[in-house]
């Protein structure tokens, strides 16, 4: 379509020209003050500030030119300084939320804002975004670029001084190690080793501006919100989880056995220790996690070959999720459940390809102590125990009596000892 391409050409030309003129625009700001005369002169600023190093207020034209704010004039952010020289003492830049209203509101509701108010040492806009070098989060040079976020947050959250001040409570132990551990996780490794910018970093889970502790209901890492937070990327898993018994229990805030709430993503996968699901050591931990609520099933699982092999650290035998699925856990009465009677052949066949209707009559959680539900197992177990007990009892007695008889015979056949001379006798 020739008309469209021609108008596109004009727009591009305007952008190129506009970009080229940006240098002038930011420096002059339409106020008549030439900021660059002083602030662009390093020696002058050094002398004026009395600092040996490059002073903070040394702001060159080229420094700001290609930032997100490259087309703003100094006066846009520093209106009081822009009216003339000397600048009003203590005059501040305009608040960022003047333009960035939503980000400002979000930050104002964050734990960082509260700590700024209470203690004055928590991050504000410039702590993360910089002051004169504000690049977009999609810019490699920006501290808020995906590959840089962990080291940005780690600047405080891996600093023993700061961590020691804010996360001293015993239940905050994980927060003290979080950044270091993150680098070991699949998410951290994907960023640092595979260089994947789509992998989750701090702000993907905790939010960039409205960072809140998990205990708070509005936090993105609160129990009720975790699934949705992880689901931003793992959308397919979220969908399945929400349809599962666990997802329903979480929505309805129902408690399981022992008063524990329904499991959310982080209960099995952890938050800062996330590894691949193929890691057998981690899988052993998941079995423990399921067992925290499903105690009877947990115990009986370890009576089976599946459980015993898992206990020995073998990764291939069936674990909870191999039969019950990882995210679509449903009761056996639910026709959609992997352990619904009609679905068992398909479920078992994932490991045992020739499984048939007979095969699936195996009790994956058979309990010899449960006479009412598993009478056959109970009686076989009782019979075997009786057999073992009687054999060992009979031959145990046989052995003990034998030793006793030989001991008695030895004492009797011993030649008479010399007469004992008791003192005083």
């Amino acid at each position, binding site marked *: 379509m020739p008309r469209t391409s021609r108008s596109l050409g004009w727009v591009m030309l305007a952008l190129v020209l506009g970009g080229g003129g940006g240098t002038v625009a930011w420096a002059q700001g339409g106020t008549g003050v030439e900021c660059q005369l002083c602030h662009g002169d390093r020696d002058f600023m050094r002398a004026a500030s009395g600092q040996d190093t490059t002073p903070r207020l040394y702001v060159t034209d080229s420094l700001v030119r290609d930032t997100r704010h490259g087309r703003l004039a100094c006066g846009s952010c520093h209106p009081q300084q822009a009216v003339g020289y000397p600048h009003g003492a203590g005059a501040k830049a305009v608040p960022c939320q003047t333009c960035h209203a939503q980000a400002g509101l979000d930050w104002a509701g964050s734990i960082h804002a509260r700590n700024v108010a209470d203690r004055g040492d928590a991050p504000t806009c410039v702590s993360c975004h910089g002051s004169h070098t504000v690049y977009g989060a999609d810019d490699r040079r920006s501290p808020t670029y995906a590959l840089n976020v962990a080291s940005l947050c780690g600047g405080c959250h891996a600093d023993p001084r700061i961590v020691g001040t804010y996360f001293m409570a015993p239940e905050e132990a994980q927060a003290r190690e979080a950044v270091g551990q993150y680098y070991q996780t699949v998410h951290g490794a994907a960023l640092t080793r595979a260089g994947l910018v789509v992998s989750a970093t701090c702000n993907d889970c905790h939010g960039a501006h409205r960072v809140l502790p998990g205990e708070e209901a509005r936090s993105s890492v609160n129990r009720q919100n975790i699934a949705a937070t992880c689901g931003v990327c793992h959308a397919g898993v979220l969908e399945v989880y929400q349809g599962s018994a666990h997802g329903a229990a979480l929505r309805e805030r129902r408690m399981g056995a022992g008063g524990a709430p329904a499991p959310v993503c982080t209960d099995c996968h952890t938050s800062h220790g996330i590894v691949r699901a193929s890691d057998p050591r981690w899988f052993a931990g998941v079995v423990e996690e399921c067992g925290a609520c499903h105690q009877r099933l947990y115990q009986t699982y370890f009576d*089976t070959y599946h459980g015993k*092999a898992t206990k*020995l650290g073998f990764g291939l035998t069936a674990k909870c999720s191999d039969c019950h699925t990882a995210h679509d856990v449903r009761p056996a009465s639910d026709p959609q459940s992997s352990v619904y009677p009609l679905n068992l052949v398909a479920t078992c066949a994932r490991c045992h390809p020739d499984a048939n209707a007979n095969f699936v009559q*195996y*009790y994956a959680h058979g309990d010899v102590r449960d006479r009412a539900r598993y009478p*056959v*197992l109970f009686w076989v177990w009782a019979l075997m125990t009786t057999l073992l007990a009687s054999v060992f009892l009979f031959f145990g007695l*046989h052995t003990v009596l034998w030793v006793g*008889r030989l001991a008695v015979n030895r004492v009797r056949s011993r030649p008479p000892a010399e007469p004992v001379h008791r003192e005083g006798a």
Partner: protein
Amino acid sequence: MTRPLSVADQGDGPYVWRFTTVDRTLHALVMISFFGLVLTGIPLHFSYAPWARGLVRALGGFQAAGLIHRLCAIITFGYFVVHIASVLHSWIRRPDKLGIVWGPDSMVPQPKDVRDVIQMFQWFLGRGPRPRFDRFSYMEKFDYLAVFWGVAIIGGSGLLLWFPEFFARFLPGWAFNVATIVHGDEALLALGFIFTIHFFNVHLRPEKFPIDLVIFTGRSTTAYLKEEHPLQYERLLREGRLEQMTAPAPSRTFYLWSLVLGFASLALGITIIVLVLWATFR
């Protein structure tokens, strides 16, 4: 010459034969396969024990342990078949066809064995003389028949667990639950019996301490025969067959190797008992 450690080699000679080469070879195979089965089986049965993972690792990992277990199972089925064949063979060759199922040379329990058990307990309690045994005491018959029973039960349930998909063609799935219980408990009975009662009866009771190598060398001194199997000795003497049973003394090398194998097996068996007790009563 100093007194030999093995009771079968102590006292007056000459040596007389007790076990054939086939019997001794089969017993050695029983020992080797049984140790293999037990060492690879107990970590699974007692998977919660603190030593379970370490033992599996020492055996070369979970899959290697499974492979050893199945190889030893094949050896077990092998010696079982060879033994049945050898019994049939000697049955065909012997003149008195009944002698193998009845009489002093038979492994079948007989009224005398019941009387011996009762008399043994009377002796234990100081109410009578010690029973005198013929070629096989009731304890030896029990050991022998227990292997038959054990191979059938443990081997059968083991096959079920080895090929569940095949057996599920005609057995319900809960048969594998039953097989798991039976396999584990029966194996526990076997190892518990062999490493305590069998060890005591054969090696560790004061009359035999510290070891009896007759199952390895296949022969014993006449003094040993008189002591352990007096009725057999008298019978052989009466029938004039003692002469043809005379054996040369085992070579020094053979004796020493038997001693090493015997003591190593005793130590290993007792170690296994310690592990099992540790897992059971910790």
